[in-house]
């Protein structure tokens, strides 16, 4: 397996479209790296540059320390799995997996050994004689993976490989891919726009927007310490709640005012607001739905973080309830215990867990405090 280094990678198309800007990343051997971001953010383009399917306009790509910018894709020792995979309809599972090796004129005995080994890893041993039409969606997807595995590449590149599967199968395949990573000990770069996939699979996640890397970090760190408003809003479902708030500094006390609600900032979060000169300025207050509480015990212990509103929608999801309400014209979501007595139309009191708030600069959208 291999390590990768991307230094100042750029992609500018002949029509002037600047798809990827100054992309820097060091990928360790055996890492599972996820590129995530909205459609058109440059994640697939970056993957295609690593594969050699797109020319690199600027910067340096190294695999195992060797510069790869001008190396032909077939000589980069990579294998890919893409979204619109197709199995050869008239071939058996075995032949589908062996086909790529046959094209490369690999000796028959070696092909046989590699196909059988990949089939074993993917639990396809008993299906090798079947044709694609006799396979389920998940089995077909595993065959597509098998075609990549038989190449025994240094790096696996996967571009939304689960996008064409239904929700249930996606969850199942996510687990399969995770297991595969453990079994192969492979370096994997995986592109997705689905943040659940990103959070559950990646050892590190690269969040991209408009061709620019926003943050590179572990799933947990991205969730708890997002570096800007975009990352905070993109990672997490339901999304983080955002409200405009006026910051007031009086001596050692810092408060955030949202309409009629005055929220006291805890000691652990004050310093950047005071030192950043935010007194009198409007900032963006962010809080995750699970940090908005409706329990009486929490409310009575948090008199300085109370907000009141009327429940617009009550959504029971079994293990949890989502409550939707407005605060000063902004829609908010609270993720609460299903035993809550609140229902649509009720007047409700919530307390924010101020130790978990995030504050962002309204103009630059960068995080002031997490």
């Amino acid at each position, binding site marked *: 397996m291999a390590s990768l280094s991307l230094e100042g990678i750029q992609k500018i198309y002949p*029509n002037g479209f600047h798809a990827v800007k100054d992309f820097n990343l060091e990928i360790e051997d055996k890492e599972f790296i996820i590129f995530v971001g909205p459609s058109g953010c440059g994640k697939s383009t970056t993957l295609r540059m690593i594969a050699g399917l797109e020319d690199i306009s600027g910067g340096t790509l190294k695999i195992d320390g060797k510069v790869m910018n001008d190396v032909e894709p077939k000589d980069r020792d990579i294998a890919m799995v893409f979204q*619109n995979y197709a199995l*050869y309809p*008239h071939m058996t599972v075995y032949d589908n997996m062996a*086909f*790529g090796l046959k*094209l490369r004129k690999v000796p028959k005995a070696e092909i046989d050994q590699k196909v059988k080994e990949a089939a074993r890893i993917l639990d396809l041993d008993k299906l090798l004689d079947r044709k694609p039409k006799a396979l389920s969606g998940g089995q077909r997807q595993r065959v597509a993976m098998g075609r990549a595995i038989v190449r025994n590449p240094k790096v696996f590149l996967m571009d939304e490989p689960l996008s064409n599967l239904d929700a249930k199968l996606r969850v199942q395949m996510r687990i399969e891919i995770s297991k595969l990573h453990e079994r192969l000990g492979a370096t994997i770069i995986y592109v997705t726009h689905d943040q659940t996939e990103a959070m559950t699979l990646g050892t590190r996640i690269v969040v991209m927007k408009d061709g620019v890397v926003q943050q590179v970090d572990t799933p947990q760190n991205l969730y708890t310490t997002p570096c800007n408003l975009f990352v905070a809003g993109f990672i997490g479902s339901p999304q983080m709640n955002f409200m405009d708030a006026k910051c007031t500094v009086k001596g050692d006390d810092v408060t955030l005012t949202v309409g009629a609600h005055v929220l006291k900032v805890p000691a652990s979060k004050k310093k950047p607001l005071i030192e950043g000169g935010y007194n009198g300025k409007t900032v963006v207050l962010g809080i995750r739905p699970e940090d908005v509480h409706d329990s009486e015990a929490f409310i009575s212990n948090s008199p300085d973080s109370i907000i009141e509103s009327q429940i617009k929608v009550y959504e029971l999801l079994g293990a949890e309830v989502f409550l939707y309400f407005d605060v000063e014209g902004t829609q908010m979501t609270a993720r609460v215990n299903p035993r809550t007595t609140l229902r649509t139309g009720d007047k409700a009191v919530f307390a924010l867990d101020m130790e978990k708030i995030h504050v962002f600069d309204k103009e630059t959208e960068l995080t002031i405090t997490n």
Partner: protein
Amino acid sequence: MGHTPELEKALNELKRITGLSMDISADTPMEEGQILQQIRCLCTAYKEKYNKADFLQSLMVNGIPSYDINERAARLHIAPDERRVLFLLDAKSLDEAVTEILKNLFPAQTKTYLVPVGETNLAILRPLKADEKPESMRKIANTIVDTLNTEALAHVQVSYSSVIENLADLSGAFRETSLALKVGKLFYSEQTIFPYNELGIGRLIYQLPVSLCENFLREIFGDSIPDRFDEETTATINRFLQNNLNIAETSRQLHMHRNTLIYRLEQIQKRTGLDLRLFEDAMTFKIATMVMNYLHTERNQ
């Protein structure tokens, strides 16, 4: 005795299309000339009678008289009246792997025909299944691109035509796919799939005569037509247009102060006379840059 290069070429061609290898011995140059003639006739006759790809290629590129199409199609067991879509694939080079993968992706029973058109293009004529809608052609094009990316590690771009009802329309479909490929590569180079019906304003510009394009640019920029803008200016303009002329959002994304962006836009206005903050000027500018790209490519060809 060695053969002349012409005879050698004809023998290779015969082997390529029929699979037949011949051992020729000629005593005189005249005899060899006669043999060459006979082999060429054999190749032509074979192509006419048995080679579907050659027939379809002639139909696409040269055109075949309509009265002849049905008869020749029947001889080759190609249904003349069937709903089909033509895909045109563009690759850096059409090596054996690309063709082999496509042959297996569309095996014979699917009645899909692969027709080489030049060194870098390959046409794929595919019938529409009864339950298939023209919109699903994009998915097929995606499958072609993704499969070749994955299996052959080849960068390819694919255009496709509108649906044709019979073989007589094939030359029109080929014109559509060729145009779509040219327009797509010129104006939408970041994409890999170019449906003929989704070429937008690029098609309009591409079909304008060069002189008209030059007049248009002169009308906008006067005599000092900018050849191309520098990278930074292009990036600023593109981002500003992508953000629907929103200064705050653009300056944030470009990590620059809004006053810097306004200054840059004013510099562009000084240079071109167009205030990009106004919709009409922004639209004119966008079209003008597309025309400039087009002319630039035309001049380089």
